[in-house]
């Protein structure tokens, strides 16, 4: 919800952009975050099915998450024995559906995070009291 300051500060090369768009990771992250949060950039899939919106590649797998108590957000997660430090929380949303049907009931809070250059959707399942990876966007 900022003023896109990182994007505005980006040094473009009108004569021809190099293969590396960003000189460093530090320069890339704020721009990616601003792009992901921007009102004018969104995926076509968002327009189709609201409940699945933004999930990208679907993948559901248990995941271990380290919780940052102070900031009340996930700090790190471990997937397939690899550890991912969370650089930024892009977005948070909640899913609460089918409460009347024990077999289909879903109660989750989802954090879309940036880590190691990818976007991951980490969901805390309130019914099972465990973390799940529910989406990956490269």
């Amino acid at each position, binding site marked *: *919800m*900022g003023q896109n300051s990182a994007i505005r500060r980006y040094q473009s090369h009108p004569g021809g952009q190099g293969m590396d768009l960003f000189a460093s990771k530090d320069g890339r992250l704020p721009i990616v975050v601003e792009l992901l*949060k*921007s*009102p*004018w950039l*969104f995926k076509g899939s*968002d*327009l189709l099915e*609201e*409940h699945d*919106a*933004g999930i990208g590649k679907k993948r559901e797998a248990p995941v271990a998450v380290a919780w940052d108590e102070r900031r009340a957000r996930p700090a790190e997660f471990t997937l397939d024995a690899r550890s991912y430090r969370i650089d930024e929380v892009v*977005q*948070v*949303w*909640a*899913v*609460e*559906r*089918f*409460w*009347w049907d024990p077999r289909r009931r879903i109660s989750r809070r989802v954090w879309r995070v940036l880590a190691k250059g990818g976007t991951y959707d980490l969901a805390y399942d309130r019914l099972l009291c465990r973390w799940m990876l529910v989406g990956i966007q490269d």
Partner: protein
Amino acid sequence: MTESFVHLHTHSRFSFGDGACDLDDLLARTCELGMSVCALTDHQGLYGAIRFYQKALSAGLTPIIGAEVAVESAAHAAFGEPVSFTPFRTGSGRAAGSGWHLTLLARDLTGYRNLCRLLSRMHVRSGDAPSIAGIEDLKALSEGIIALSGCRNGEAATAIRSGQTARARDALTVLASCFAPGDFYVELVHDLTPHAPRVINTLVSLADSLGLPIAATNNVHYVRREDARVHDVLSSAGARMRLPGPYDRPNSELWFKPAREMRELFAGLERACDETVRIAKRCELDLELGSFHFPGATLPAGETAYSVLSKLAWKGAERRYRPMTPEVLRRLEYELSVIGRLGFPEYFLVVNEIVEFAKGEGIRCSGRGSAGDSIVTYCLGITDADPIAHELLFERFLNPERRQMPDIDVDFDSARRDEVIDFIYRRFGDEHVAMVATVNTMTARSAVRTVARAFGHPPAGIDALSRYLPWVAASRIREALAEYPECRDHPLRNAEHSLLLDVVEQLDGCPMHLGTHLGGFIITREPIDTWMPLQWAAKGVVVSQYDKDDIEALGLVKMDILGLRMHSAISETLELARARTGPEGVPEPFELTPDDPAVYAKIARADTVGMFQLESSGQRNLSRRLAPTRFEDIIAQISLFRPGPLEAEMITPFIRRRHGIEPVEVPHPGMEEPLRDSYGVIVYQEQVLLVARAVAGFDLAEADSLRRAMTRGRSRAEMDSIRAHFIERACERGVGIETAEEVFRQLEGFAAYGFNKAHAACFAVVSYASAWLKTYYPAEFATAIMNNQPMGFYTPRHVVEDARAHGVEILPVHVNESLADYTVERDGRAMRVGFRDVRDMTQRLRDTIVAERSKRPFRDLADFLRRTRAESPATSALIRVGAFDGLGITAQDRTPTRDELIALLPELKAVLARDGVAGDDVLCLAPVPARPVEDPTHPSGWSSARRLSAELEVLGLSLTCHPLSLARQDLERREVVYARDLPLMPDGSKVRVCGVRERAQTPRTRSGRRTCFLTLEDATGLLDVVVFEDVLARVGDVIVKHRCYLVEGTLQNNSERGLAVIARSVEAYRIRTDGGQDVRLRHGVPSGPMGSSIGGAGAPEEDSWTIAS
């Protein structure tokens, strides 16, 4: 204000299907969260606004009143952009509309009035125009209104979600132009969905670029997160869908969040939260509750309302009182001065205008309630009980110490009530009159059906889950299932329905939809839509969105134009009797001196079926014990069998003292005179005033304030203060402190339970009239009662049985004799059943039969079908109840049996359909195979059991005989005692009785125990059975699921408690004739859950009823 956030967009249950906030819960939560302001913005209306406003003020909160309205597409209206989406349909019933959401808040009284006008303009359009606001409407009526651009279903938010940012900009531009600068805000809702941040960011960008302020809301639909499921169920029910319902919301985040959470959600956009506080500060609506607003009365030039009222009252006094006594003069002068001082003359004149119109048109009417305490209303002819003769006190009606809106209720002839309503609309104008609304709320039964439907149960499953449920509040469903015997095998007891029951409990008292009050009209001086929103009711009249309490709170005049079927029955009895005896043959019963011993003897015999207010089984029981002999006794009888006097155990001492069983004693001699008529028992509210005056020297206004202060709900401290004041005043007059304390104890005990004597006196006039007509014109009276059903305490079947017991011959329905209504025949000795109660009969067919028969009688079934084109179901019903008995001829040279007619019916219909005519001799030419004749002695060929079953099913009546008459031998073998013999048996006798059900009631008892009062009927009359809790626990399911019972128990037959059977066991009884044929009771005899109202007889005083609320 220390707020950091104010919820400006909140839906309560008055959003009817899209909101689950209970108002009390919402306001309690507001306080709990430390907020001091809360807004209410229900869909398409202000249904809950007034009660919300009052409750909020009582809780020390600042209320903001608003609504979320559906608006036409701003972008389309202004720029002609195509309508690419159809918005959700919001609102309920005739106020629903498909439009883009816009949140409107009333900034001040001007804004409130404009909001009312806007909503009324949306809803009350001609034809089927949609209930949405036009852009031009918004422009015209935006003064004083603050608007928020709407939730995710607002036009801008929807456009952004669909990628049409330009359209969103256009919509915001147009909407903003409708309101004063600074009064339109871009609404931001972060509902924790994946889209929310993107939509918010775009809206903020657009707002910034357009120079519009932003405001954050949470579009609150429920108070706590866990209440979301109630909301889902309500929205599913509103749309008649199964879950997830029409909105299919992805989460449960639309709850009343604390300010801290709201600010966290809008981190980086704190100004959106700050703005909510600023908006709240700008909203300063004062509805000026407590002032009165009367419609204009017609006043001649140079006159005031007071002068006109005075002249009318004095003129009326000359007519009512001959000679006019000094007491009348003093009283009338005093009342007029009080009415003038309080500013109420116009109200009296308006009521008088309406009553005068009715009387001028010959429409029977009578005032009721505390208005009967006034000599002014009596002189104007609004009420008919003399307040001087009956010691009725004006202060009970209008207390000069308290300026409260007077309430004059008038009952009109139900059949002609529409004429009165037409007059009101003509006289005051359509723009100044509307009907009062009612809000229908959920009980356990309706809540179960609502939740089961949302859970996707099939219709048969929903019926199974709600069948046999008692009439209890939804919050008590688990208790009822666990404890009520009729629920012993109920499917809801299965563990699988636990979640369903959880939701049902939460739906307790939830508003379901807006209804129309039976007779309440609001009349205003200014156009009524400046006071309240209006809409079409389902029945096609314009109705306010407010109920009677809201109207009263606003200080507006509400007139109850109530239809009283007894008035219609009395008028019709007179008409029928005068048709037989001549116009002068029957006097006007309201003008009779109420002193006819034959009438009182009839009441004392409990022969009161059909009599107004005296017919219930409880009243019949009281009739025997009281044995009334004068008009005051009828007033006492009406007053005593009420929840208050019953709870205060007034009946037993009253009866004992009346019959000299115990002495009349009062603690202070000053009480003797006020309590003379009630033998020292405080029965009437008016007596509380008189006693306070006599003992403590209170004037009547002070005494009425004391009475009101003594009503229930007072804290101990408040009551102690009242007591100290009373005793001090009494002691100042030389009353001993012990005596003063005893008098106060009695007043305290009875003040809350006493009945308004004026109300009883007004009713007693009608009661006596009905009793007099029943005494002297039984056939006409019974006929009129049948023609004005539904009315009274008993089933139509019992009314007919009662007429028969009084020697009135009951003639069956017949195509060549009956009219649509019941008629009197044989010089007042017989009643002919009309077509109105025959199942499947249409109005067309009834009219056609009568019209054709006036040419010549029907010769046979073929002739009937050819001339009337009657539908098969109705014809079949007529055949089954013997309406063709004796008509036609068969090849065997006899009249056809009912079976032959039924078999022939399809053939005749086919011939008619093919050829257009059917020969008169079809029966001879085409005999049909039919069942063998059961009873050759009867022209129908049917046995009496079959005839009776058909009558019960088709007419709901038992014309052939009483159902139990057919089981006489079996009953005698079982040594069953008949109702007529019970009064002759000694108290304490062991008896076995049998009867079909008339009523079954389980009113709440003071002890909390559940007792069923069962009114049964056997072939000789009515009998009352009391089933106490221990027995009810065993037999409750039998009572609910069956229609006829065999009861064993102990006879109670004494003057203190009257006549009743105290049940020891209740079994279902299957009526079977001596020949082994079953009698089916369906339709004619009720079954199902036990009711909750009072009316049962035989209750011991210590287990008397509390007020059924």
